[in-house]
C-alpha cells in the first residue's frame, strides 16, 4: 500500500526527517510513537504532500505509484486521507456544504455517518469554528468516513477528547479501518500517531514505530513499545541499539 524509501525532509534550511523507511501493507495498521517535536506530524504531512516542507531525497510510493511530487488532491483521490490533530477553522464554510462537495457518490451516506458520530446538528456550522476538542475530532472522523480512503493517517485522534468521545471516535476509526473484517480480507490500512495509546484499545495495531529527532529508533509490537515508554519514557528508545 505505502512504501517510503530513504526519505529526507527539510523545513526551511533544517533537515527534520532523516532516511525514513516505512512499508505499510494492505490491511495493516501501524502506530507512530515519539516525543513532541520528533517529526511524526511532519512525516504525515510529507505523505499527504503539504507545503511548508521539502522532500530533498527519497521516494513515497502509494499503490505502486511514485507520489513524491504529486499535488495533495491527487494523493487524496488515489485513496490517502488524513485526520488532523489541529485542523484550521474555515469560517463561513459549513461542514454540510463541504461534505456535499466531497461526498460524490457517497452523498447518501452522509446523514448516516453524521448520526453515528452525533454530528447531525453541526452540518450548518462553520468548520471547526467554536468546536470543542471532541467536536473537532468527530468532525474530522466524519469527513474521513465520507472520503473513505484506502489509507488513513490519524494524527493524535484522541488528544483533547473526553472518554465518552474516545469510544465513539475509536469505534468509528475501527469501522473505517475495517477492523470488523477478517485480516485476510481487510483492505484498509492506517498510520496512527498517539501519545497515550488509548486509541489502540479500539484498533488492534499491527506494528509500532518510535521516532526520535527525525529518525526511527525502534520497530516492533506497538503494545510492547508503549509499555516500555510508559515505564521508562523515551530515553529507553534513545539508548536502544536494536536499529
Amino acid at each position, binding site marked *: 500500500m505505502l512504501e517510503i524509501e530513504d526519505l529526507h525532509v527539510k523545513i526551511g534550511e533544517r533537515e527534520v526527517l532523516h532516511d525514513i523507511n516505512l512499508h505499510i501493507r494492505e490491511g495493516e495498521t501501524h502506530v507512530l510513537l515519539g516525543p513532541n517535536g520528533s517529526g511524526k506530524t511532519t512525516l504525515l504531512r510529507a505523505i*499527504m504532500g*503539504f*507545503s511548508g516542507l521539502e522532500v530533498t531525497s527519497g521516494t513515497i510510493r502509494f499503490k505502486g505509484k511514485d507520489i513524491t511530487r504529486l*499535488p*495533495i*488532491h491527487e494523493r*487524496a*483521490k488515489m485513496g490517502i*486521507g*488524513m485526520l*488532523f490533530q489541529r*485542523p*484550521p477553522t*474555515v*469560517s*463561513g*464554510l*459549513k461542514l454540510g*456544504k*463541504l461534505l456535499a*462537495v*466531497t461526498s460524490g457518490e457517497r452523498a447518501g451516506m452522509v446523514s448516516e455517518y453524521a448520526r453515528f458520530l452525533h454530528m447531525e446538528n453541526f452540518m450548518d456550522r*462553520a468548520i471547526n469554528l467554536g468546536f470543542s476538542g471532541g467536536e473537532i475530532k468527530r468532525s474530522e472522523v466524519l*469527513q474521513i468516513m465520507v*472520503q473513505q480512503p484506502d489509507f488513513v493517517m490519524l494524527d493524535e485522534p484522541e488528544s483533547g477528547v473526553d472518554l465518552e468521545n474516545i469510544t465513539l471516535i475509536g469505534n468509528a476509526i475501527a469501522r473505517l479501518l475495517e477492523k470488523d473484517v477478517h485480516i485476510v480480507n481487510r483492505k484498509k490500512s492506517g498510520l496512527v500517531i498517539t501519545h497515550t495509546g488509548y486509541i489502540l484499545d479500539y484498533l488492534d495495531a499491527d506494528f509500532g514505530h518510535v521516532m526520535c529527532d527525525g529518525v526511527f529508533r525502534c520497530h516492533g509490537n506497538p503494545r510492547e513499545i508503549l509499555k516500555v515508554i510508559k515505564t521508562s519514557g523515551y530515553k529507553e528508545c534513545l539508548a536502544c541499539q536494536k536499529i
Partner: protein
Amino acid sequence: MPEDLGKMTDLSPEDKERLTLTGLEVEMKNRSGSFFQVDQEIKQWTSLEKGIEVLPIAEALRKYAWLSAYSWNLVQKDKDQYTRFVADQPEPAGFAIIARKGTKTIYPLQACLFLARTPVQHVHNVIIAEEGAELHLISGCASASYKKSGSHIGVSEFYVGRGARITSTMIHNWGEEISVFPRSAARVEEDGVFISNYVCMQPVKKVQMAPFVDLAGRNAIGRFSSVVVCTPGSFMDLGSTARLSAEGASAELVTRAITTGGTIISRGMIEGASRETKGHIECRGLILRDGVIHAIPEIKGNVVDTELSHEAAVGKIARDEIEYLMSRGLDEDVATATIIRGFLDVRIAGLPDALQAQIDAAIDSAEKSGF
C-alpha cells in the same frame, strides 16, 4: 390599475436573465406584488395581498394627503446633489408601498428598476409598515444588456411601525459604466425590526451609498448586511449607520467584501445613544487580486450601559485552509472557490427563506463565473 404584465415578460431573454439574477420573478411566481419601472416610465404595479398597497409615488401622494408627511422626511432634500436632483423633478417616479396594520405577507413584493435608454434613472420610494405589519421587499436593479453608461439615483424612506417588520433586499446587476447612488433611511418604532441586505456581484462603475436607520423605539432592531464582489474598474463606497436611540435597541452591520481588482470602502457606524443598547459591526474582506478594501468601522457611545463592538479583517485566503480542503480531494481551484463561497455565505436572521435563496442564487451565479 393597469395589469400590463406583458411589459416585463416582453423583455429580451438576455435582459430577463439579467433581471432574474437580481432576484426578480418575471413570471411573478411566489411574489405577493410587483412594481416595474423602465427609465422614468412606470410600466406595471400590482399587489395581490389584501391590506398592502403598491402605487407609483406620484399617484400615492395624490391619493393620500397624509403621505406627504412621510415624503422627504427621513432623507433630506438637500442632503447632497443627488437628493436635490431627485427632489427637483416635477413628476416623481418610484413607488409607495403601504402595509396596513397587522398585514403580513408570506411572499415578498418585488420592485424592478430597469435602466434602458435614458442617461439617468431616478426614483423616490416610500415604504410603510404600520403597527404589527410584515413586509418583505426585494428590489432588483439592473441595466439593459445594450446599455453601456448611465446613472441610477434612488431615494428610499422606510417606516417600520410598532411591532412591525420590514426586510429589504437589494440585488444589483448594473453595467461596467453605470453609476449608482442609493440614498436610504429608515425609522423603526418600538419592537420593530428593519433588515436591509445589499448584494452586488457584478461589475459597476461606481456605487455610493450610506443608508441610515434610527432605532427610535424600545427594543427596535436594525440589521444591515452587504455582500459584494468588486471587479477591476469598479468603485464601491458602501456604508451604513445605525443610531440606537431607545432603550433595548440593537443593531448589527455585517459586510463581506471581495475585491478582484476594484476598490471597496466599507464604512459602518453605530451610535449608542440610549441605555441598554447593543451594536456590533463586522467587516471581513478578501483581496483575491490586487485591489483595495478600506474598512472603516466606527462606534460611538454617548451613555453608560451601551455595548458596542466592531471587528474588521482584510486579507487573503489562508494557504492551510486551501490545503485542508485539497486533502479531502478538491483541486486547488475548487478548494479556493469553496472557501470563497463560504466566506460570502451570510445567514441573515429573520430573512424569509425565499429571499435568502435569492441572495444565495446571486452568489452562486458569480461563483460559476469564477468571481
